[in-house]
Structures are given as structure tokens and as C-alpha cells.
């Protein structure tokens, strides 16, 4: 994940990151979700299970939780995370410009 953040910074996209270490969620997680308008939930499953928990347990609006899902059976790469973020951010930037 740190490698992906470095790659994205080189692309001109600076991202704050939070790692979830435990469930039930602590207050810090709710605060982080509240402080940010767009959140990429990076997971290694098909159904965005952590995203669902964030929505049901601490009422984070689903619209601001963007899925970044890797489920090909292999460990996630930094390139995958970068690609998932760019796919969302670049069209939005282009539209804004």
C-alpha cells in the first residue's frame, strides 16, 4: 500500500491513508471517514465486505466509498491499487477541466 501511495504521488495524486487494524471499529475510523469526501476501500474480496461493514457499523454513506477489489487469488500489487485509483480520479479530473 505504501508503494502504491508513492506511485500515486508521482502521478500528482496525494492521498491520505488509514489502515483498519480491528473490528468493531474505533472512533478514529469514523472520524477519518467523516473528514474525507471520497474513500477508496481497498480489499481482497469480490463483494467489498469491509465497505459493507463501514456502511452498516458506522453509517458511512455508500456513495463516498469507492470499491477497489482484487480477488484473483494472488497477493495485491501496488500497480493494482494505483490503477484502481487512477481509473476513478483521472476521468473526474478531466471532466472538471
Amino acid at each position, binding site marked *: 500500500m505504501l508503494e502504491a501511495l508513492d506511485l500515486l504521488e508521482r502521478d500528482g495524486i496525494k492521498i491520505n491513508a488509514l489502515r483498519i*487494524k480491528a*473490528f*468493531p471499529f474505533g472512533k478514529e475510523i469514523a472520524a477519518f471517514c467523516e473528514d474525507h469526501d471520497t474513500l477508496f476501500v481497498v480489499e*481482497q*474480496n469480490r463483494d467489498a465486505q469491509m465497505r459493507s461493514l463501514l456502511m452498516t457499523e458506522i453509517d458511512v454513506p455508500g456513495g463516498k466509498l469507492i470499491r477497489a477489489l482484487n480477488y484473483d487469488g494472488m497477493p495485491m500489487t501496488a500497480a493494482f491499487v494505483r490503477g484502481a485509483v487512477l481509473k476513478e480520479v483521472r476521468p473526474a479530473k478531466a471532466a472538471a477541466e
Partner: protein
Amino acid sequence: MISTLPRVWPRDDINVLGIPIAQLCAQKWSDPRQRQLFKNMVYVGALTALFDIDVDVLKTAIVDQLKGKEKLVAANMEAVNLGRDFAGQNFHCPLPVRVRAAQCAKGKIMVSGNDAAGLGAIYAGATVCAWYPITPSTSLAEAYEKYARRLRVTKDGKRLYGIVQAEDELAAVGIAIGGGWNGARAFTATSGPGISLMSEFLGLAYFAEVPVVLFNIQRGGPSTGMPTRTQQSDIISCAYASHGDTKQVLLFPANPSECFSMGAQAFDLAERLQTPVIVMSDLDIGMNEWVTEPLAWNDAHVHDRGKVLDAATLEGFKDLKGATGADTWMSTAMPSPTARCPVRIPARAPSSRAARHTTRMHAIRKMGACMLVSSIASAANLILRQRWYRNRK
């Protein structure tokens, strides 16, 4: 040269270099077993030429791997050179991508998450491990056994731990919960399909407030899934494992160092919160060797055992019983699974094994009677409800 590898890949950054390894081995060795065994080493040899890997470093690794079988070193090096020569003669070696010695791993260690978690359980003071084999969690129980054999024995060889390979996952978690109920730090290790089977018992531990630790080394799913592929897809099934309103405590380690630290911390949390705690590792972290931070442990750490009743407190309870004249102190004082049944745990444990057995059987019979009474009450309730419904019509 015939190969089953696809020639067209979905990615444009993959180049295929064909090496007729089977053919090279068939020409070199007449023994079919050798032809088969040395294939991998021929491949490794070709890689040393393609990526400019130091052959001396490789030889050191081979010598280390074949300790006690020194005769095989020369034969393996012969296979390495066979692949190396072929690559040198047929490709532009080395390729632009090369392997270089670096200092990035300085101060770090190489360990798998399951090995580290097994050691974490030892540091946490776990004395009961009940498990049923399932890839990719098996090596965790094996690591615990390996370390316990070294670190959990008295000078005269007495083992201070118990490991039970149960008949199935249900029994495994049941034994671990039993261990937790009796005051031992107990755990089990499993994977997704095991969690499914353990879910009913997890509900018991959750309701009865019994501390127990589960290590879920997640693998690809659904169903029995793929035991050689990694995934993190048991999050919801573990968060709400079991029926009814349950919410389990989950810890998410990100590397083997955290498998060690969170693995140890899980036992403190389980006892403080009096509930099951599930450590959510996965196949990649658990089974693969990672270069990671050295495992850290504070020797001044005191295990958090939550609220513990010691002998002096129990004596105090006896006074309470005497003062009120009621025989109900135990059901309110202890968060015990027997709290809802009219079963009393004797204030003093019976002295002999036979007496303990008799007491236990008596308690079980009483629990059975309690369940029977409950069933009769339910049936009566049902009949009354049906009558009321008919009369209403």
C-alpha cells in the same frame, strides 16, 4: 519444443522465453527419476544466467538446503550449469532485468506469518491448542507445537501444554472453548471452511462469555475454495460468526511481525473482553516467507487476564453466602454458562477424581433436567398459543 504455456498473454509486458528443460534432462540423464528431479534445478540455472544471479550465492543456498546429503550437491550443481549454459548460448544474457545484492533487508528477518503467530501464542502463554488440519492454517499449529516442545517444558521434561488434533473443526473449537472456560489460554487455527463449521460453537462462547482465540488463515473461496490461493473474504462471516446477534472481535495483521504481536495481543483481549477473538491472517501472509521487521516483545509485559477470581475473593463470596443465607451467589458472581441453569458449582472442589466425576455427572444431569423442563414449558406454551389462535377465529 512443445510447451503447454500460452503464447498470447493478456498483458503486453510479458515476454516468453522457451527452454526445453525436459529435453535437456532426457539427454543428460538416463535415470527417469533424475530426469524428473533435476528439472527445477536446470530452470534455476537458466535464471542465474538470465538475471545475472551470483552462482556462488546459489551454491551456498544449495549446500545449506542439502545439509547431511552432501553427495547431492555436485549433481544439483551439474543441473544448474546445464540450464545456465543453455541460456547463455541461446539468449542475450543477462537480460535488462537483473538481480542485484542490496542492503534493503538489513536488520530484517525472514519468517512466515504462521510461524510468527505460533510463537506469538507461546509468548501469550497459550497452553491449549486444538485444531483440525486445513491448508493454509496447518503450519500455525505445527509452529506452536515446535516452539512449545522447546519453550513450554520443565527441566525434567514435563510438558506444560496440550495439543489436540481433533476429529473435525467442531470438536477443535469445542476443545479450545473448553480450555478457555477452565482458565487456560486456548486457541485453534483454521481457514474459511473451518470457520463455517465452528460458527455454532462460537455463538456459545460469545453468549457464555468464554475467552478463546481463533486464527483464520483465509484462502480463496467460496465453499472449500482454493487452498493455494489467497483472499480476504471471510470478513463478514467472521464479524458476525454464529446465529443471532453476535459481533466478534477481529484483528487484521498485515505482515508476519503483526501475526506475532496481534497473535499475542488476541489472548489479552479475549480475556479482558471475555469473548472470542479472531486473528484474520491470510494464505500469503501465513504461509509465504516474508522479509519483515524483527519480532518485538516487551519482557515487562504482564498478561491481561481480565477479571480473575482468586482464592481470597472466593472466600469473601462464602462470607456473602453466609450473610444472606441464600445459595445464589455463584450464579450472580460468575459469568458462567451455568448461570441460567439451576446448577451450582461447589465452593470447594471435591478432593478425589471419583468425587469430581460424580459432581460433574450430577451437574450434567441437572442441566439435562433443566433443558427437559424448558422443552415441556415450550411445548405447553405452543399448545396454549394454538388454542388461543383457534378461539380467536
